[in-house]
């Protein structure tokens, strides 16, 4: 077996159908979607078809979709588009850095932020969100699915709390889109971010759902693109790809694709727990997206395991990479209360639509023996073994 890729929460390969749909927009259909002539009309039509497809995936109107350069921009637009100095904002300790660092910057701008904690399974308690509300609360921004553990957050309950309090609710659904069905009506959110490359479309494209009537302060100034909510010539190939990926995601749910995915993930997870001792699942017992499992292998350094597996052809990940590419301790696992050594011993496996059961078998043939070798070479493991 060549290389097996189980790091789909980092990015996914572009599906062949997505690529085929997009290809003409890298070639003959090159028009600027704002132009009045034939070339512009051609790409404008493609952009609007994609918008409709995404609206259908999320259960909203096409006019409520704003295309962005990705998940990070969508999160930034939602947060900075609404919150201003002296506002109070509620978020959580396990958000992606796109939200976490935006909130940190809001603090510099004079906002108050409450970061609600998570329990040992990695879930936010909606009551904590309710208790955090203040008269000055402007926005709740809380992710739908966590990127490291895959744990789903109680966004519907939080949406109700926000609606009752008349507070804006944004959810970062980057890791949920394409993996679980999403309905902005059920969630009762005002804003929701998705990213193309996490759902088999392209890197460099994303979208923000903005409920009709929500007044967003734009972040970019320029032309009146995207109903003046996001200036800049549309990334037509990216948008077309995102539209196609949304269509495939919808079809996937209709055909029970998420059940197939979770069966594959469960097999990987159960076999690893069975064949390697001193392991466990981070976020066990909480509802999770079907493609992710985050497993700790006590007495190893996750960093070394990731490298060792990569050299043998299996791509997985741990924590978050810092600017040098080195791995930093996971703020998510730490927030869940994991001991630092256990957080460092945790590995994320995340599957995509392209993965097969043969690939799961390959991983199962590789991981247990690699973990044993790492443990044999670990002074910590030997100390433990002696003291036991």
């Amino acid at each position: 077996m060549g290389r097996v890729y189980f790091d789909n929460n980092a990015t996914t390969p572009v599906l062949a159908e997505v690529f085929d749909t997009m290809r003409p927009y890298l070639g003959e259909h090159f028009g600027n979607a704002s132009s009045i002539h034939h070339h512009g009309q051609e790409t404008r039509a493609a952009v609007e078809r994609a918008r409709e497809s995404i609206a259908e995936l999320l259960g909203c109107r096409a006019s409520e979709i704003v295309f962005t350069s990705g998940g990070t921009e969508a999160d930034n637009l939602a947060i900075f588009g609404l919150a201003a100095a002296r506002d109070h904002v509620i978020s959580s300790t396990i958000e992606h850095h796109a939200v976490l660092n935006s909130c940190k910057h809001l603090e510099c701008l004079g906002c108050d932020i409450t970061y609600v904690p998570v329990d040992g399974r990695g879930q936010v308690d909606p009551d904590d969100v309710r208790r955090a509300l203040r008269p000055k609360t402007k926005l709740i921004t809380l992710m739908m699915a966590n990127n490291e553990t895959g744990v789903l957050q109680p966004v519907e309950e939080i949406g109700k709390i926000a609606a009752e309090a008349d507070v804006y609710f944004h959810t970062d659904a980057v890791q949920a889109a394409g993996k679980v069905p999403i309905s902005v009506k059920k969630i009762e959110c005002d804003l929701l971010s998705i990213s193309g490359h996490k759902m088999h479309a392209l890197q460099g494209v994303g979208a923000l759902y903005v409920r009709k009537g929500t007044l967003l302060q734009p972040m970019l100034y320029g032309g009146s693109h995207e109903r003046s909510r996001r200036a800049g010539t549309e990334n037509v190939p990216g948008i077309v790809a995102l539209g196609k990926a949304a269509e495939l995601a919808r079809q996937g749910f209709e055909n029970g694709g998420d059940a197939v995915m979770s069966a594959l993930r469960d097999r990987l997870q159960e076999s690893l727990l069975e064949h390697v001792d001193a392991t466990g699942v981070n976020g066990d017992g909480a509802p999770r997206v079907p493609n992710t499992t985050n497993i700790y292998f006590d007495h190893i350094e996750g960093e070394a395991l990731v490298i060792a597996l990569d050299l043998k052809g299996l791509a997985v990940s741990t924590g978050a990479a810092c600017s040098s590419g080195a791995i930093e301790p996971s703020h998510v696992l730490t927030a869940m209360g994991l001991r630092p050594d256990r957080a460092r011993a945790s590995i994320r496996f995340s599957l995509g639509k392209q993965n097969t059961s043969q690939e799961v078998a390959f991983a199962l043939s590789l991981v247990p023996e690699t973990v044993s070798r790492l443990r044999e070479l670990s002074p910590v493991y030997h100390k433990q073994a002696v003291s036991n």
Partner: protein
Amino acid sequence: MLGAKRQMLNTKTIAVAMSGGVDSSTVAAMLRAEGHNVVGLTMQLWNQRRLAGHSGMPEAVQGRCCSLDDVYDARRVAETIGIPYYVVNHQERFERDVVRPFVEEYLSGRTPIPCSLCNNHLKFDQLLMVARQIGADLLATGHYARVEYDESRGRWLLKRPTDLSKDQTYFLFGLTQEQLSSTLFPLGEMKKPEVRELARKSGLALAEKPDSQEICFVPGGDYKRFLDAYLAEEGDSLPDTSGELVTTSGEAIGQHSGIHNFTVGQRKGLGVATGSPLYVIQIKGDSRQVVVGPSEELYSHTLRARNVNLIAVDDLRERMRVAVKIRHRHEPAPALIESTSADEVLVTFDQPQRAVTPGQAAVFYEGDVVVGGGWIQ
């Protein structure tokens, strides 16, 4: 040019510690050209931005081994020569085993060598373990030194390199037999210009990159500013280590600003005006006294080295005639060494040596061979 260890292991995997400099990059290129499976590893040891802006530290820092530019350079080399490359995070250990001891040594009036600590605790310990865990048989570095197995003694030997002007054995005296058995120094028989030439021939964009001398986590080599900023970040202020300036006969002749500002042998900055030049002879951590005197009092006949690591011999059963180097830029001086306790060695020089400095290492040589070394008390 092939060392015996490398020949034996032609088809095995070698991890290269890559700093982003010319030396380690050339090592990676050499080993790759010889047909080994090479994996490049860079240790992320210190966040250069961490103390930026802290009391007097520059906003934009240019450090050495942990800067993003160097990681970028190392990554480019790996890509050029076609090897897998990874950055591994050892910041916690580095702070615990290198940075904190560095700060504490200065505050107690000693002059530390962080590079030796880094070699002992990080490079040839943590990084070697990672190398083994990822399936490498050996760890290669860009140090100028040689390692050889001596059949007759049954020991691995650490030897000075061909290019004595680049000799780094002084910083490697702490290596154990176990570590030496897994280590390659492919530059041990090369001269620096040859290394640069090989880097050029290998198509490495950084072939002309200048050498760096300073301590990697201390920007611009200004350790006093670093101490200040580090302690400020910890929420501490620099403790008051000021005290008396005294002569060797015990006469107080003034005050000084803090013992961490002084190094044995230092002449400038004493803040006293006398007829003849005065030098720092000794720093007394307990009484916070800085002892000064004329140049001739800087010379010592003996020194004691502790935490001694022996390489060429397993024990010092009797007195041994060696040459002893007491700082990086010091010509090894003839001396006798003898064991005074389990990990302490008494060094008696033939000729008194100038500025024996506590905190520095005393490394013992028998010709090219490193017998061992310890920390000067």
